[in-house]
C-alpha cells in the first residue's frame, strides 16, 4: 500500500492522542507540596496498626502531615520497584530490608541514616539490636527497623503426639525416628506448603545453621567462592533429602501453597503432626483452627540440634523486623518530616500495644510487662525470648540475597525437595549466582 498524504495526516493526528494516552499514566506520582508520602501494605490487622500510627503522628504534628497509601503485598513488590526505578518513589519506603534494600542503596535511591542514628542513640538502643543487620549495607544504615519480629518456629499438634504416644523431638535423630511412627498411623510427620518455595527454604536455613553454624550461609551471602560446597552445607542438603526420602513431608507437598493456608490446616486438623513456619502462623491457627490454640493443643519449640553440629542453639532465622527507608529523591523538607516520623511516630506506646494485641512481638525492648499481660502471653514471651536472646538472627535467605540470586535459590530448593538434583548440583548452581 502506497502512503498517501491522507494516511500521513492520519498518522500526524494520531500522535497527540497517543501522547495524551501516555500522559495519563504519569499523574499518579506523589505530590511535592506538603509533608511526606508513605506507602505500605494493606490487609488487616496489620494495616490498621500502620494507619493508626500515621494518624496519631499527623494529629500531634498538624504542620507536618504524612500522606499514606496502601497496597496489596504482591502488587506492592512490583509497584515499589517500578516507582523507585522511575524516580516516583514515596518519601517513606516500607520494605523487608536485606538484598532488596542493598539494591536500592547501591543505586543511590535511599538515604544513608547512619549519622542520623548517631544523633538518636537512645532511639537506636530502644530497638532489638538484631533488627539492624538487615538494615545495614556495607557498614551503613539505610533503613529504620520497625513493626514486629517474626522468627521461624517448629509447631506441633499435641493431640496427635498424645494419640501416637510420642514426644516432641529433641534432636535431628529424634525427628527421623518420629517419621515412621506417624506414617504408620496415617499421619504426615510434617506439613509443608511446598509450592510457595520459601516454605521449603526455612528447613535449609535451620539445617545449615545447626550443622555448620551461622558462618556457612554468611560466607555464601558475602559471595565467598564455592561457599555452597562447604562440607557442612552439603551435609545439611543431604540430611534434608534423607528426610524427603523417608516420607517426612505430607504427600503432595509440591502442590500445596502457603497463601491458601492449606499447610496450616493440615496441622490443626491433625493430618500432620508438625510444621516449621513463621511466628505469624500462630495468629492464623488461632483464627482458623477453632479451639485448637485456646485448648492448648498447639505446641511450639525451637528447631532442635543436629548431632555433631556446630550451630548455637539460640540462633534463629526469620524476619528480624520490617523496614522504613527514606527516598533520596525526596525534597529536604519531605526528608525532615520522614525523620521526625521515625523519631516520634514509629513504635509509640499505642502502636506497641496494638501489635501485641494481634499476637506479635514488636521490636521494641522492655515490653515484657505488656507481653505478660496479653491473652497470648506464653507464646509472645517465647517469641520475645528467641528474638532478644538469639546470638545470630539470620534473615530469611530470599530477603537477604539479591532478588536475582534469591530466584535461583528458590528454584533450586524446589528441585532439591523433589530429589531431581543432588546436593552437589544444588551447590554448583548456587555458587554460580552468589559468587558472580
Amino acid at each position: 500500500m502506497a502512503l498517501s498524504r491522507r494516511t500521513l495526516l492520519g498518522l500526524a493526528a494520531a500522535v497527540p492522542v497517543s501522547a495524551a494516552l501516555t500522559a495519563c499514566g504519569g499523574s499518579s506520582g506523589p505530590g511535592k507540596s506538603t509533608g511526606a508520602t508513605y506507602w505500605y501494605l494493606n490487609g488487616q490487622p496489620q494495616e490498621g496498626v500502620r494507619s493508626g500510627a500515621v494518624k496519631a503522628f499527623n494529629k500531634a504534628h498538624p504542620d507536618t502531615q504524612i500522606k499514606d497509601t496502601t497496597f496489596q503485598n504482591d502488587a506492592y513488590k512490583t509497584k515499589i520497584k517500578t516507582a523507585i526505578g522511575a524516580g516516583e518513589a514515596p518519601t517513606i519506603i516500607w520494605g523487608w530490608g536485606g538484598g532488596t534494600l542493598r539494591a536500592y542503596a547501591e543505586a543511590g535511591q535511599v538515604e544513608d541514616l547512619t549519622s542520623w542514628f548517631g544523633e538518636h542513640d537512645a532511639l537506636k538502643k530502644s530497638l532489638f539490636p538484631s533488627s539492624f543487620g538487615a538494615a545495614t549495607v556495607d557498614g551503613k544504615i539505610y533503613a529504620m527497623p520497625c513493626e514486629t519480629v517474626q522468627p521461624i518456629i517448629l509447631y506441633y499438634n499435641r493431640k496427635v503426639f498424645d494419640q501416637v504416644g510420642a514426644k516432641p523431638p529433641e534432636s535431628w535423630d529424634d525427628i527421623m525416628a518420629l517419621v515412621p511412627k506417624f506414617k504408620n498411623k496415617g499421619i504426615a510427620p510434617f506439613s509443608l506448603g511446598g509450592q510457595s518455595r520459601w516454605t521449603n527454604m526455612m528447613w535449609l536455613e535451620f539445617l545449615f545453621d545447626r550443622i555448620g553454624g551461622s558462618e556457612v550461609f554468611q560466607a555464601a551471602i558475602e559471595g565467598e567462592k564455592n561457599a555452597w560446597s562447604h562440607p557442612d552445607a552439603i551435609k545439611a542438603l543431604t540430611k534434608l533429602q534423607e528426610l524427603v526420602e523417608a516420607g517426612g513431608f505430607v504427600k503432595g507437598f509440591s502442590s500445596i501453597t502457603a497463601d491458601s493456608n492449606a499447610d496450616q490446616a493440615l496441622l490443626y486438623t491433625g493430618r500432620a503432626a508438625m510444621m516449621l513456619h513463621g511466628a505469624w502462623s500462630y495468629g492464623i491457627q488461632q483464627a482458623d483452627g477453632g479451639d485448637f490454640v485456646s485448648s492448648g493443643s498447639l505446641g511450639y519449640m525451637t528447631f532442635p540440634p543436629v548431632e555433631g553440629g556446630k550451630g548455637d542453639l539460640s540462633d534463629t532465622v526469620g524476619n528480624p523486623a520490617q523496614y522504613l527507608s527514606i527516598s533520596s529523591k525526596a525534597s529536604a523538607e519531605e526528608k525532615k518530616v520522614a525523620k521526625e516520623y521515625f523519631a516520634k511516630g514509629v513504635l509509640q506506646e499505642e502502636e506497641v500495644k496494638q501489635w501485641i494485641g494481634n499476637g506479635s512481638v514488636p521490636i521494641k525492648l522492655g515490653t515484657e510487662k505488656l507481653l505478660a499481660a496479653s491473652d497470648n502471653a506464653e507464646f509472645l514471651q517465647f517469641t520475645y525470648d528467641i528474638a532478644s536472646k538469639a546470638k545470630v538472627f539470620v534473615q530469611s535467605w530470599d530477603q537477604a540475597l539479591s532478588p536475582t540470586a534469591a530466584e535461583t535459590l528458590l528454584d533450586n530448593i524446589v528441585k532439591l525437595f523433589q530429589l531431581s538434583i543432588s546436593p552437589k548440583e544444588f551447590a554448583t548452581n548456587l555458587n554460580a549466582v552468589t559468587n558472580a
Partner: protein
Amino acid sequence: MSAVTGPAQRRRPRSALPWLATPALVLFVGFAVVPLIGVFALSFTTWDGIGSIRATGLTSWRKVLTDPGLPHALWVTFLVMAVSWAVQTPLSILLGTFLAGRQRYRAVLGVVYLIPLMLSSAAIALAYKALLDPNFGLGAGLDIQALSRDWLGRPGLAFGVVIFVVSWQFIPFHSLIYQGGVQQIPKSLYEAAQLDGAGRVRQFFSITLPQLKYTIITSSTLMVVGSLTFFDLIFILTEGGPGDATRVLALDMYKRGFQASLMGPASVIAVILVLVGLGLALLLRRLGGRDAGASQLEGA
C-alpha cells in the same frame, strides 16, 4: 493484495477509509508497536528495574541463549501447544458438528457447553486447584481413590492437568467456531451424497471435514498462537512447577523479569516469543493460502 484490485475499484473516489482505521492504528501503535520497540531495545541492556539502564550489547542474549532453561521452556511451550491442539481440535470439530444440528436439545446443550467460556482463566485455575488439592480436594473429600492423586505435584500429571484445564476452557469457544462453519456448508452437498448412498460417517469425512478446512486453519491459528501466551492459568495452577515441569516461555519471562529482576534477559525472551508467534501465524496462513478455490461455501 493490490494485484487483484479491479479497475472498478481503482476508479472509486478516495473515501475516508484511512480515517476510519485511525483509532485502531493509534491503539496498535501505542500499545503494540511502541512497547515492542522498547522491549527490543531493552534486550540489549542490563537493568534490574531500579538502578540505571546500562547498554551491554549482546550480554543478555548470550546469557539467555546459553541457559539450559530456555530450550526447556521452549520445549514445554511446544508440548503444550501441540498436545492441547491435538486434544482440542478433534473434540471441537465433533462437538461443533453435533451442535450444528437444528434439534432443540442441541441448542440447549450448546448453551451449557458455553459456560466455561464465560469464566475468567484465574477463576478456572483457582477452582481446579482447589478441586485437585491432594489433602482437601475432591478426591480426599469424597474419598475417591482414583481422584486422590498428587495431581499438581508430579511433573507428568501436572502437565496433563494443565492440558486438561486449557482444553476444558477453550473447547467451547472452538466448538462455536466449528458450529458456525458446519452450518455454512451447503445442504445440497449432503443431499447429493445421500443420493449416492453415502452414510453419516462417509459424509462427515468426505464433506464436512474438507469443507471445514478454513475453519480448521482459523481455529488452529487461534489455538497455536494463543497457547504461546498461556500465563494466568498456569501461573495460578502450578506456578510453572513442580520444579520447572510446566514452565512455559511466558512464565519464564515473567519470572526472570519481575521475580529475579533481570529485565534484559526477560526482554530477550519476550522478543523470542514475538518471533515464534509471528512465524507460526505466517506458517499457518501459508498452509491455508495455497488453493483458495477449494471451499464451496455458498457466497464464498
